[in-house]
């Protein structure tokens, strides 16, 4: 792992053992009244740790952001939600066995680029659209 886990990291009993996990670390999860609210998390993949930096010129690693947490609508009004998510939450409250909760999902994505050598010493810059999660919502 390249980034030091933060203070609360050790409290996560279900994280990967250090030696066997992919290079990277999880962001903190801020529990709200015992629940994990929907927010953006980060799994940093270090190209240096993977030994790819002799042919990947940039970046040095990849922040694989993802969305995780609960969508608790309409009770938690501070969260970003679509009308559909609010409706689905209400229907879920009425029929919890048949209708699932609203999803915590990316609401805004951006591109990322990788610069690397090919086997002929040509340099390639590749742009990947919609690869990086910018914001999460319900």
């Amino acid at each position, binding site marked *: 792992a390249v980034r030091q886990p933060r203070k609360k990291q050790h409290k996560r009993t*279900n*994280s*990967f*053992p250090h030696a*066997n*996990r*992919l290079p990277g670390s999880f962001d903190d999860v801020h529990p709200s009244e015992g629940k994990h609210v929907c927010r953006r998390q980060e799994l940093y*993949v270090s190209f240096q740790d*993977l*030994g*790819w930096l*002799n*042919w*990947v*010129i*940039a*970046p040095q690693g*990849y922040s694989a952001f993802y969305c*995780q947490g609960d969508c608790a609508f309409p009770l938690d009004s501070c969260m970003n939600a679509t009308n559909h998510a609010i409706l*689905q939450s209400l*229907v879920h409250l009425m029929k919890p066995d048949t*209708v*699932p*909760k*609203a*999803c*915590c999902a990316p609401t805004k994505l*951006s*591109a*990322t*680029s*990788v*610069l*690397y*050598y*090919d*086997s*002929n*010493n*040509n*340099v*390639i*810059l*590749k*742009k*990947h*659209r919609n*690869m990086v999660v910018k914001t999460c919502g319900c």
Partner: protein
Amino acid sequence: VASCPQQHSPRRLSGREKREMQREILALLGLPGRSAPAGARHSPPPSAAPLFMLDLYRAMASQDEDDGTSWAPQRRRALDGADTVMSFVNVVELDRDIFYQKPYWKEFRFDLTQIPTGESVTAAEFRIYKMQSVTRHINQTLHVSIYEIVQDHPNRESELLLLDLQDFLAGTEGWLAFDVAAASNHWLLNRKYNLALRLYVETDAGQSIDPGLAGLLGRHGPRSKQPFVVTFFRASQSPARLPR
């Protein structure tokens, strides 16, 4: 009603799973393989192209924050529309210099075997560094023209296609960029057209000048000033991802 994906608890990954995961990251990022190419590991490539590409990478990475004022509008448009940008290092260079009969020229060849398939060329530039000409008056205008060699003939002159023509003062120093998109398109569509680019320099009076004496640097110049081609590609469709 769409259902949320199950929230699996993280678990210990086996070595095989870890390698699969790494391979998948490589595939998602469009990277060809894990091991470094031999050339990149042992002999450093000419550094002009990587430096230029690193500038492009930084511009692309800061696209959201940067207003792009430091980039020419043409370059900005090419960058905005591109999914892949490739630089091609000049691998073979031929000179018809002052030891030959006029007209003088310089020829550049590139290895284009790794051009991506399924992508179209949106722009392409041939970039060559020009030093101040030592044999000409600095205010004299030089006409620099770039041709694509369409067909080589053993006993007569090659068939050429004019790609770009630009005027410079003999005293100009810096990178010159020529539009070679037409040639890149030909090379992409049909690999047998991958012949070369040829450069001529003339005065106002139509007198041919040795490109070297005009200050144009070839592959024997400093590593940071060696000529190369940069091509902007746009993917015609989203890449299909196979399930792991």
